[in-house]
């Protein structure tokens, strides 16, 4: 896949992958701070009503067998999301990487 892309955009993608993480990639028990919701407005609003707001801390908890869907601790409650949804929730880069 990389071969077909221009060198530039390939580099961008690689850089992006290194610096941004999605909620789906966050390991169980590790806290992450939500940066933005990469989803259509109405879905983003639905998730924000449940506490998935930019700036809020989210901790992944237990999951169904196979890791999908997974329970997230957010805002004093626990909400399960499928991986396809969690992978559109972008986390703030953790300080260690910058």
């Amino acid at each position, binding site marked *: 896949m990389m071969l077909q892309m221009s060198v530039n955009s390939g580099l961008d993608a690689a850089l992006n992958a290194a610096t941004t993480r999605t909620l789906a990639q966050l390991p169980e028990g590790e806290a992450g701070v939500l940066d933005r919701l990469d989803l259509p407005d109405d879905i983003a609003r639905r998730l924000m009503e449940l506490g998935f707001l930019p700036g809020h801390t989210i901790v992944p908890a237990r999951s169904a067998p196979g890791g999908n*869907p997974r329970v997230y601790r957010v805002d004093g409650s626990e909400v*399960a999301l499928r991986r396809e949804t969690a992978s559109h929730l972008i986390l703030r880069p953790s300080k260690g990487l910058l």
Partner: protein
Amino acid sequence: MSECHGCAGCAVAEPPPSLPKSARPHVVAIIGPPNSGKSTLFNRLTGLRQKVANFPGVTVEQRVGKARMQHKDRDVVLVDLPGVYSLNPRSEDEQVTRDVLAGTMPGIPKPDALLLILDCTNLGRHLVLAAPILSLKLPTLVILNMADDLKSRGGEVNTAELASELGAPVALISASKGQGVEKVFQFMEGTAAGSTAVTAPRIELPVLQDIPRCRKWAQDVGSGAGYHAPAPPIWTRRLDSIFLHPVAGPLIFLIVVAGVFQTIFAGAKPLMDGLQGLIVQFGHGVEHILPPSIFRSLLVDGVLSGVGAVIVFLPQILLLFLFIGVLEDSGYLARAALIADRTMAKFGLQGKSFIPLISAYACAVPAIMATRTIENRRDRLATILIAPFMTCSARLPVYTLIIAAFIADRPILGHFFGMQAGALLGLYVLGFAAAIATARLLKSSILKSERVPFVLEMPPYRWPTLRSLGLRLIDRSKVFLRRAGTVILLVIIVLWVLENLPVKNGQPPEIADSFAGMIGHAVEPAIKPLGFNWKIGIGLVSSIAAREVIVGTLGTIYHSEGTEDSVGLRKALQSDLSPGGAVALLVFFAFAMQCMSTIAVVRRETGGWKWPAVQFTYMTFLAYLCALITNEVVRSGILS
């Protein structure tokens, strides 16, 4: 619409009602987010004086009840609204809530006062709903529920401070334990007497579309009222480490599912047999008292046996709802849905569809009633539409009779698994396959995924209360029995009339000469390609009442005992039906929606005739097509 927010100057008292006291009931709506204990409070306030229906034209359930007031100078009518996080009309639930609050919902007067119920262990999030509700400027009591949880987990809130922040009275209660509920009654007495003035909140209400700002507002109000969130629920975490354990979790899930299945399938059997026995005895009693007449025949053979055939399912329904009640109230149902989600997602469904579909193996009626736990409307509709494909217990007598008559019991896998058992298993698989294929078809066409993602809130584990379980069982039985007493009674009388008219020499006719027989003859050309004759035609017409009725009808037609083990009936069928027609009949029953109880319950749960009509047409068409193919294949001898 009414985004009149933040106008700090409009601290206007409600104008006194123009109508004299007690001229019309005082309407109070209960509103709150999902899992805030709304229904528990509603049950506390109304007891058994409630009725459940649907809001006109939608699948959203409408619960209305009379409050148990001490001073009864004016009736107080409570409306339980669906659980919502906001009033932005994106889902059917939110639209209904908005319409009721605006007074534009047909049949429901605009509420005079509101009870806003919030989970105080999660106030940061739940308080957000206070902004749009308070901006309606109706007398509102803000109820902080789960006070017992808040206290035991070390949280606190100053209700007096919160009341002055919000400009609305605040009551800290525990709806499940009944603590503080008297404050709610006091509030309703006050508003019913027209004494409560609406004051403006101290803090300006936020712009409602801006969720982060609303959250900030809620946070500020909370901290202004000295709110300290409680510690995480330790017991819930401990239990989740077992119930969601990678190995133990699925095992426990399977045990629970097997338990539900076993109970509704086998456990209900003695109760059902007992009830059946009582109904039969009652019929004999009536036969003893009344002289033989057309009327007695209508009463005993028509009404009693027909309604009896439906009422017999009551133990099954009660057991299933006892189970679902325990699972839902304890919080395990959300975990089960989580575990089942991935498998169900493969069929375009979701985790919450699992328990209803398993229940449909016993009977589609309680299964369809159980889909109420699915909040997503399209997923719920898809589950309702495929549930009747699961092999319900009413198909078994038909399967047993035809398989015993037409399929030789040659061993396939030793003595334990023969051709007959194989055929029965095949029919179960056939129904399941049709359900899955239909689910995929629906979810890729008319019920194409609403862009709402799968979101499942995990409530903390709680002990189910006997009170809530009891109320639920009474409610479900009422719904079921009311239907047995109305639609089904009507269809049964019509069928009886068709089988017993026209009267010849003062005697009811032979079934072949009755109106039912005429219908059988009339439909014969249509069903001949399936390998069915007019006698099967009569059976099909009568089985619209309920599938197993065909066995009794065929018994009458062939003058043998109308039971599935009747040797005479088996012999008669063997000589009158081709093997192709027999297998086609099995396939027809696997797919066709021959059950008016199911049709009636789908109509009720979807709020109209549209979906049952679509479902009946689709299933009948599929049944006809597959029976036609089956008959042709068997006749052509490809398989032998």
